[in-house]
């Protein structure tokens, strides 16, 4: 089966959308910086830039070879008469990619940004204590192995995408803009990293209290949210064209749904925090906004605007309680809220597609086969396909990520020394603070 081709107009639109995606990465990086301590701000931005660089290079070396594209060469297992496409077999180093005029080069361009986005997410949970080189090594493994493998199953015509064709389970596992492939993948990596690193010093006291360590710059956090919106519209629109065979005319609905889900989630989060704490909380509202974007990613092309509002509202509600639950009950110190925002909201988004998804047009997601549109728009068993995808993330991706990172931690410890944490990551690892002019020189106040 050949790799699908796009018309020139669709290619141009797709390129435009793909070039918006780095703004999502910039938004997430700013949020991670703002939600961390001021003495680690420069380090966080440096780690974000390094993660993007390492992820892009690792994906170039072998990631794309194992992820592949719909209709590309792959290794297939035969189980009870059905083929299970489990890993791609493209050549390493992007060879034979740009000469065939197919959508493969667009997929490669899109994915090199997406893998960077996934790599940024764990940085939020490891803020203020994750060493720079360790985060780069972890990112390399994510981009070279874990991400491509799952992305192949979902976006490369792998077995999860084939569930509809081979077993009659809905349209197969669908994930338009990467709620599972990018966000939950990143969120579960964030959980593994937070478990391995342990909490920041002073976060949990012996009497059971967990004092809040507020982020140092809410302006960066909120500006990051706005950048993320633009990036997410590109992410969802490009994903819909490349992985579900969507038309460029559908981008308007995708943009509307993305904006509505984020808006509903942010307002819900602001309302809940206002009711509970007396005033709306800026960082939790920002988390709600991004959670709405994350939840919209799976289903943005297959739901109505009203349903997008419902999906966003639920995401905003879940995130508030999830952040609290992880921090206070499970004693997981996640300064950026990455586990709740990307992991939990992403899982909700994937399941919401099974609940609300309407398939009025054929869906292209398996090796060039176009599944017919469903009767009355409802695909029987779509909820099951989505549940199988979520089960794969929790049952396969989480243990794999945890074990790989734990092994890495044995050879190269993730956590900075006690002195480094006290001093701040900026001074300890980079040798200079992000805000040198903020340092108060006590000798200036001594009487002369």
């Amino acid at each position, binding site marked *: 089966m050949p790799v699908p081709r796009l018309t020139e107009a669709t290619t141009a639109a797709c390129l435009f959308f793909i070039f918006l995606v780095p703004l999502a990465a910039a938004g997430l990086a700013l949020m991670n910086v703002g939600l961390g301590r001021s003495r680690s701000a420069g380090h966080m931005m440096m780690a974000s830039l390094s993660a993007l660089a390492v992820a892009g290079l690792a994906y170039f070396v072998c990631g794309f070879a194992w992820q592949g594209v719909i209709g590309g060469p792959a290794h297939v297992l035969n*189980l*009870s008469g059905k083929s299970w496409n489990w890993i791609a077999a493209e050549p390493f180093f992007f060879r034979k990619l740009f000469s065939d005029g197919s959508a493969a080069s667009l997929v490669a361009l899109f994915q090199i940004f997406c893998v960077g986005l996934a790599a940024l997410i764990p940085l939020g949970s490891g803020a203020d204590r994750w060493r720079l080189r360790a985060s780069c090594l972890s990112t390399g493994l994510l981009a070279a192995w874990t991400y491509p493998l799952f992305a192949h199953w979902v976006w490369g015509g792998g077995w999860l995408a084939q*569930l509809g064709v081979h077993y009659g389970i809905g349209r197969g596992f669908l994930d338009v803009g990467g709620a599972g492939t990018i966000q939950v993948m990143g969120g579960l990596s964030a959980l593994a990293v937070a478990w391995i690193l342990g909490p920041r010093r002073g976060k949990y*006291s012996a009497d059971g209290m967990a004092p809040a360590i507020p982020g140092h710059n809410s302006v960066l956090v909120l500006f990051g949210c706005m950048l993320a919106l633009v990036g997410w519209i590109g992410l969802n629109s490009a994903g819909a064209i490349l992985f579900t065979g969507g038309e460029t005319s559908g981008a308007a609905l995708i943009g509307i749904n993305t904006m509505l889900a984020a808006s509903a989630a942010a307002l819900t989060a602001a309302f809940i925090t206002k009711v509970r704490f007396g005033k709306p909380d800026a960082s939790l509202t920002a988390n709600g906004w991004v959670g709405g974007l994350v939840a919209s990613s799976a289903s943005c092309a297959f739901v109505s605007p009203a349903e997008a509002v419902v999906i966003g509202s639920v995401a905003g509600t879940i995130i508030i309680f999830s952040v609290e639950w992880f921090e206070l009950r499970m004693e997981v110190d996640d300064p950026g809220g990455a586990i709740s925002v990307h992991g939990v909201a992403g899982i909700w988004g994937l399941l919401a597609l099974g609940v609300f998804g309407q398939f009025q047009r054929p869906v292209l997601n398996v090796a060039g086969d176009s599944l017919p549109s469903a009767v009355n728009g409802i695909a029987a068993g779509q909820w099951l396909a989505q*549940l199988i995808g979520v*089960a794969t993330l929790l*049952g396969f991706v989480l*243990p794999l990520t945890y074990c790989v990172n734990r092994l890495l931690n044995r050879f190269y410890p993730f956590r900075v020394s006690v002195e480094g944490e006290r001093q701040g990551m900026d001074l300890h690892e980079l040798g200079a603070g992000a805000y040198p002019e903020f340092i108060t020189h006590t000798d200036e106040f001594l009487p002369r």
Partner: protein
Amino acid sequence: MKVVGFLLLPAGWFLVLAAIVLFAAPPLRDAFVLTGVAVEALGLILAFRSHLIPREEKG
């Protein structure tokens, strides 16, 4: 507890895979998949509990 939790996660996933391969009829297949997810949930609970910080290490 940590090891058991992390073993239950893939065990639940294998149940899900087995359900897809072995059962074609929706009710039985769906029930088996849900059972696999329940096993994963159990594994997740154990994994979380095993990462709770001991009292002496707090502070």
